[in-house]
Each structure stands twice: as C-alpha cells, then as structure tokens.
C-alpha cells in the first residue's frame, strides 16, 4: 500500500468528532454461520438455502428505515435517553414558555430579583411532592433559580438544534463534495478542514463568541440592531459554533463517500445514465445517512457542553440572556454558601448531554447491521436445556 501524504487508513479508523465516541464499529459481533434461517426458501427451494441472505426472516417486508427504527426502539439506553430528554425539554418549555406562549411557572421574568426566603434554600420536596416557593432555591439577590435554570435549558436546547443543523449542512456538503469528486476539490476542502480542526474547538469558539459579543459596540451599530443581536445572542452563537464544529462530520462523510462511490450500484447508476447530482443525492447520501445521523447526534451532545463552557469562560451567552454555563460561572464562588446554585444547572447539562449520548449510541447500534446482541451465557444455557428437555420428552412420548 503506498501512501498519499498520509498513511492510508480504513474509514473506520478515521479520527472523528470530539472525543471519538462515534463511528467505530462498537459491539460488532458477526453471527455469521447462518446464511438463511430455515423456512426462508425463496425460489431456490429445491436447492436448499444456498445463498447468504442474512436474517431475512426477521426483516421480511420491511424497508431499511423500519428495521433501523425497530432496532432503535428496542435499545434500552436510547429509549431512556429519549424519555429523559423529552421530559427535560417539556419541563423547560412549558414552565418558562416558548414561541411567545407564556409558561405555567409563576415567575416568568427570570431576571427579576425578590425577597430572599428561608435563606434562599430550595423548597423542592420529593415526598410528598411539592415545588414550594423556590424549588431550586434563590441567589443572593433573590432571583429564582428554577426560572433561571429552565430558561438556561431552553438556551441549551436552542443552541443544540441550531448548531446541529448548521454543522450538519456544512459537514455533509464538504464531505460529500470531497469524497465524491476527489482530486483537487478534495485536497482543497480537506486542507481547509485540517486548518479548522487544528485549533481546539473551544479556542475557535471563544474567538467567534468574542466576535459577536463585541461587534455591535465596536461597529457602533444602531440601537435596534444592537438590541436584536443582544436578544438573539444564543442563536447567533449557535450559528458561529456551527461554523466550527462541522469538521469531524465532514471527514466521516468524506470517508463514507469514498467507500460508497466504489460500490457497484453507483457504477450501475452511472451506466443507467444518472447525473452526478442524482448519484450523490439518490444513491450515495441515503446510504451514508446512518453515519450522518449518529455523528450529528453525538455532535449535538458536545455542543451542549461547548456552549456551556464558552458561557462559563465569558465568551458565550451573556446577560440578559441565560445559559446553564453562565449560571455555573456566576455562582462558582457561592459554592460553599449556596451549593444549589451550582448543582442544578450542572445536573441539567449532564442530563441533556447524557441522554443525547445514549440516543446516539442507540442509533449507532441500530444503523450498524453487524450489531447483534448476544444474550448472556445463562440465558442460552436455559434455552438449550429446554430444547434437550423437549427432545427427551418427545422421545419418551414416542415410546
């Protein structure tokens, strides 16, 4: 194997986004010896089950999407993640309101201060369940921590979704173009990707975060513009971070395209007269969708912590907006006196990132055709004993 300017690697070994949770064929177990399960005779009935069809019994009549979905909903971790994420999103959206609709929590102006009640301690009680005046406590000037945290979750979710979409679009476009056309386009795009990837995302993010924070004042833009920027700071920040985070996805999509474009069905489409655009969009992209979905999901998990970290450092979301990272940064000194100000935002960051990671893991297992769960030895032994038992019974009955 000769090399280009890098030693060649298989796509599976390509470095990937963030700290490499995604991509590698995890839990890959080949239950290979069985070509076709019994009864799957197809039209070669007279000739035995000759051909390697995989487990078509299980999947008969299903499109690949349906198979992936059915595997996904059987993944306990992923389902747990979906439920937790759903509940968290529901709680934050309904309590503080969204899309112009007010929420049910009595303090809708999260920045308003109030009287410090009961030493600002949380009033949440699990049994019997009561929220009380300030379920997550208050800060030193009496702001309601519950309102702040719920609003912060909304910011995190917004950043996550917007950043995900932006990075997805750029990553797929760059990866698809360089993987499909190769040659000079590939070299140019990949050099650019190398450039972006050289610096830690937090460094690039900090510079871009600083940029949107200083620009209105520096440029002396009108009050309306400045105010619009201030109000939509999380959105703008998400867009900026999307411009940084696409690189891992681009590399993965590229290597996926490099592999897929050599597949014979692409040649077949070309012989059938399909244009480049049709080949990319209709033939290759749908086959790369697993890699794309899985890694976008994992990227979104990283996005949540990245936004929080930038806000913590002071280059992200700033008042009057609220972000979980910003809350932690504000209250880190109060740890000894008001630890709840530190625990609640942290807990929700972890809950969100963890559930998305589990969802991503479930998606990867669902998309990976090689993944087959093997039951524990004990379960297999039990089933085997059952069969042996049945056989002896039958034999006994026959006598």
């Amino acid at each position: 194997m000769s090399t280009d300017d890098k030693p060649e690697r298989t796509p599976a070994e390509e470095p990937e986004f963030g700290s490499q949770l995604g991509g590698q064929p995890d839990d890959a177990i080949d239950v290979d010896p069985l070509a076709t399960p019994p009864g799957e005779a197809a039209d070669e009935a007279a000739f035995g089950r000759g051909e390697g069809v995989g487990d078509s019994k299980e999947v008969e009549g299903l499109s690949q999407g349906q198979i992936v979905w059915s595997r996904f909903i059987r993944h306990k971790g992923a389902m747990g993640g979906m439920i937790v994420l759903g509940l968290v999103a529901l709680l934050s959206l309904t309590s503080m309101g969204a899309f112009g609709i007010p929420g049910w929590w009595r303090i809708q102006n999260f920045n308003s201060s109030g009287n410090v009640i009961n030493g600002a301690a949380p009033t949440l009680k699990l049994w019997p369940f009561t929220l009380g005046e300030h379920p997550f406590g208050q800060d030193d000037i009496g702001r309601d921590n519950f309102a702040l945290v719920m609003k912060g979750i909304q910011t995190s979710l917004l950043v996550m979704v917007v950043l995900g979409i932006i990075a997805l679009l750029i990553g797929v476009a760059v990866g698809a173009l360089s993987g499909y056309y190769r040659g000079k386009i590939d070299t140019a795009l990949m050099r650019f990707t190398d450039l972006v990837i050289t610096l830690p995302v937090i460094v690039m993010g900090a510079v871009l975060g600083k940029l949107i924070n200083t620009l209105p004042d520096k440029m002396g833009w009108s009050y309306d513009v400045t105010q619009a920027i201030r109000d939509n700071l999380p959105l703008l920040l998400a867009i900026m971070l999307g411009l940084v985070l696409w690189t891992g996805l681009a590399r993965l999509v590229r290597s996926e395209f490099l592999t897929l474009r050599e597949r014979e069905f692409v040649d077949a489409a070309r012989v059938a007269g399909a244009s480049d655009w049709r080949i990319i969009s209709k033939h290759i992209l749908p086959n790369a969708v697993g890699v794309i979905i899985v890694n976008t999901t994992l990227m979104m998990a990283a996005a949540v912590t990245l936004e929080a970290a930038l806000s913590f450092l002071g280059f992200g979301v700033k008042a009057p907006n609220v972000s979980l990272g910003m809350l932690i940064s504000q209250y880190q000194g109060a740890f000894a006196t008001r630890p709840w100000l530190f625990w609640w935002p942290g807990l929700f960051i972890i809950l969100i990132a963890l559930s998305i990671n589990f969802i991503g893991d479930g998606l990867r297992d669902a998309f990976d055709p090689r993944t087959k769960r093997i039951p524990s030895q004990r379960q297999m032994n039990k089933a085997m004993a059952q069969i042996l038992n049945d056989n002896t019974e039958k034999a006994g009955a026959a006598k």
Partner: protein
Amino acid sequence: MTSEATNNGKPDKAKSNEGGSPDLTTAVRLSKTLGGEVNRGDVILKVRDLSVNFWVNNGWFTAADKLSYDLKAGEVLAIVGESGSGKTQSAMSLIGLLPKNGRASGSAKLKDTELIGMSINQLQHIRGNEISVIFQEPMTALNPVYTVGFQIVETLRTHFVMAPSQAKKRAIELMTLVEIPDPIDSFDKFPHQLSGGQRQRIMIAQALACDPKLLIADEPTTALDVTVQGEILKLMRELRERVTAAIILITHDMGVVADMADRIVVMKDGQVVEHGTSDEIFNRPEHPYTRQLLDSVPHLGSVTAEEELPAARLTLVSEGEQAGVPLEAGDPSVTPAMLMEDVAIEYPKQGRRPAFRAAHHINLRVDPGDVVGLVGESGSGKTTIGRAAVALLPVAEGKLTINGRDVTSAKPSELKPFRKEVGIVFQDPGSSLNPRLPVGESIGEPILLHLGLGGSELSKRVENLLESVQLPRAMRNRYPHELSGGQRQRIGIARALALQPKLLIADEPTSALDVSVQARVLKLFQDLQAEYGFACVFISHDLAVVEMLSQRIAVMRHGYLVEVGPTKEIVSDPQHPYTQRLLSAVPVPDPAEQKRRRELRDAIIEEQHIVS
C-alpha cells in the same frame, strides 16, 4: 513482541513418526500428545451424532444435525455442500472454534480422546498440535503485523521445547517443504508482501508445523486463482503422501473434491444426505440432491468433446510477453457491437498515486448477437475491459467503437445515447443494488432517465422485466436485503436489459453464487440471450462457464489479450502456453477424468517451469 521461552515442559515422549518431517523427531513435545503410534489406515477420528446449534433471534437454530463419520489416517474426507449447509461449523466444532453463540453436542473422538466438551486448557494442547486448520482467506487469516516466519515459529514453540534458532530452522524447512520461493528471505516477510498462493502455502506450512494427526482444510483454494489452485492442490496431494495426517477437506467445488477426496460427505441444510467413497458419489449418486449438485456443475470439455475441429484454424495467438493478439478480420458489412482497436485502458491518477495501466494493446471484436467469453485470472485486466466498454473507465490509447459509435474521447455529456445501448451486470449482487431503493426503482432507473417514462407506464415496464427474469411482479417493492443472492442477480440482469441494449457486459455474474443457483441463473441468461439477441462480453474466471455460454473465447493475462478464437478450438486445442496451463488447471467433477487431466497439468507445469 518476540516469542517466549517455553522451557518448563516436562520432557514428554518424543513423538516418533516415520511419515513426519525430519527435525521434529528429536524435539521435545511440550504439549501432551494423545500417545500411541498412528499408522496409515487406523481410524483416528470417530464422529457420532455431532450437532451444532446457533443462537439466533432468540432461539436455537440447528446448523448441523447428528453427523456421524469415521476418518482414517492418511485419508482425505471431503465435506461438500453449499453455503449454509453447516459444513464448516461442524468441522470447527471439533476444536472448539465455534463463534460465541454456537454450541456443539454429540461426540467426536480423536483416537480415544473426546473432543466435544473438552476444557479450553486441554483444547489448547490439541489445537495446532494434534489437529490443525488451513483457513479459506489467506489474506485475513494471517496476522498482518507479524512476519510469516514468526507466525510459524510461534506455532512450533507453543507445542515444542525449542530454541528460537531451532524453530527458525524448522520453519524454513517447512517453508521449503511447501515450496515457498526463497524461504530464507521469505521468513522475514509480512503477509501482505506475499502473493495469495504463497500466503496459502504459509498457512499450510503452519498447519503442518507440529505434525498433526488431523488437518482441517476449510475451502483452502476458494480464494485463489485457478492456476494457483492447481498448484496448491498439487502440493497438498504430495504432502498427503508424506505425512500420515488425515485430512478433512471442506469445499463447495466438486472439481476440487474429485481431485483430492477418498471419501465424501454431502451436506444440505445441516443434514448429511449422502456419504460414500469418491467413486460411489461421483459415479453412482443416490440422493437426488447429490445428483442435482453434480448436474449443476459446469463441466469443462463437456460441450465440445465429440465434435470435430474445423480444418482451418481461426484462433489468434499473441507473439510474445508484451504483445496482444492482432485484430481478427470480420465481416465488413456488419457493424460490430463492440470494436476495440489497439486499446489501452488506465485507472486515472488518484492524488499522488500515479495512473495505472491495466490493459494494453487490446484488439477485440464482438459482432451483434455474439457471446464472447473473456477469461483470465484476478488482476489480468478482464474487468477493466468490461468497465471501459460501458465508459466507466476512459480509454487511454487506441479506438473504442460501440455499435458503430466512436466513444474513445466522448465527453460525459455525449455519452447518453451510447449508454442507452449498453448494459452491464455486475459480479457482486450484494453490492450492485442500492440497498436503500426498492428493487423496482433500481430496474426502472434507466427507463426513467433515458425514456422519461414514469407512473403506470414505468410500472408496467418494470413488471414485464421482472417477469422476463422469472421473478414475481410483486417483488418490485422489495428491498435488496430481502432477496436471495440469486434473486438479486436476476434483478441485476433485468436492470441491464431494461433498455434492450445491443451490447451487454456480464462481469462474473455468477461467481458469487452457489453452484445450483449459478446453474439456474446461467440457464436464464442463455434463454434471454436467445430471446433478445444482444451481443455479450461474458467475463469470468471459470472456463467451464464460459465454454457453456460463448461462441468465442478471449484469454487475458497481465493486461494483454494472449489468445482469441472460437470456443471449441480454444478448449480442445489451446495454442498459447498460458491458455494451456489455465485449461489444464480447471478441475472437473469426475475423479477418473480429473486424474488424467491432473497428470497432464503436472506435465505442463513441469515443462513450463512455473512457480507461483
């Protein structure tokens, strides 16, 4: 990591074995042997009611059901069956090498030792020592990061008290025994630096290292080219004379069976359907499945055996190593479906990897309605020609005319009318259909793109095509993964024929299929060709298949066409030395005839001094 000392073993009885290879008689065997002399003809393996089960989709599935057979030292037992018949797994269960979800039950005794249910520690003394295995894929079965010499030495030093220098000496002996060229140099080579045939020889040397009593050869030649296969088979047969080991040969290739086996077990769906001597199975098969299997195998020479050769020879032979055959004169009134004039084909430059020229000076003419078989071994450039003919690869030199249209330097935009008249069937039915599209859409794509048909019109066309490849209309809504390999290949053919092309390229369309399925697909192909009358370049490594289908044969080697002529002439009287070797290497499913052909082949190999 280097190998490690294994000098704690109690000096066991040195194994004396007259059939064994030299040095081992003095070495101290570290692993316990089963003891006792083994002579030719002793029963060394007794298998009784051996079953293998696999846990799939929450249930136990029987992969092999109650196998029983005996095996004598020095004997070759072939286990034959198509994929999924349980032949490999039943043999792997002997040494406990089933996947995690597999279980074996029943009994298998090596001499007097029960193998089924043996503890892993005991098994480690059996594996590689008493029973060794030759695997199918020599590329993946050797560890890529260690030298082949180290891997043989490792086997030796696991089972013998041996200094590294001794082990190395013995390894080089073994490598000499399996005829590795330049064994001392090759000792330090990594697997990827050797050819496929050489790697398989290393596997054999490794398997023979400890002088085992039983050798399991799992499809040992399936991944190899036919001439290399011939050499490996020759080697294995010679070794058979020299060692007393019994051999279990697992294969789907009846030709290989005819070449090697003393006795044969035929398996289907995990059951043994027939068991007998080679003579019985080939000449007096009793079970209908065995008969069907034998009938499905294309038999080289069966088509033209009785016919007379025409007096005037039409075969063209290349002059030397670096030259192709000249262009045959054709009927000037006929426009050839494909005409290659001194064509060279290159894989374009890829980054810093330079362009690679895979075919040189090709002169080939395919007339309308003709089927031309293009044969050659892997890497000979035959697929390259097929891909160039449908403009998937650019022509670097010369002139390529398809249906009278010069496409040598056509721009992509000019290719559309040309593409309407050609079709291609790919080798791997698993890869040639888009997994995310229902097969109906795959078939309909050329119609949609060229004729602009849609809706019910398109559906009707697709359904007709499905019918013509003998598949139910309802199948158009299925996805490729729901179909069997044979069905997928029929879909591939239907797609290639969607626009009723004048020229069809068939690139090894049946080589990934089991023989019985292959037989049916080939039959279908013949019928369709008769019906539609397209010209066809049928690319295959299997001469017997090509002989069945084509009027003319073109033989490729190292990127050059070396011989072109009518099928009958080529098969019965090849001119080029390479064609002769290729033909003689094809094993035929008939022990008596194969014996005759084998002698011929060995003579040719001797005469041409070929070393793989």
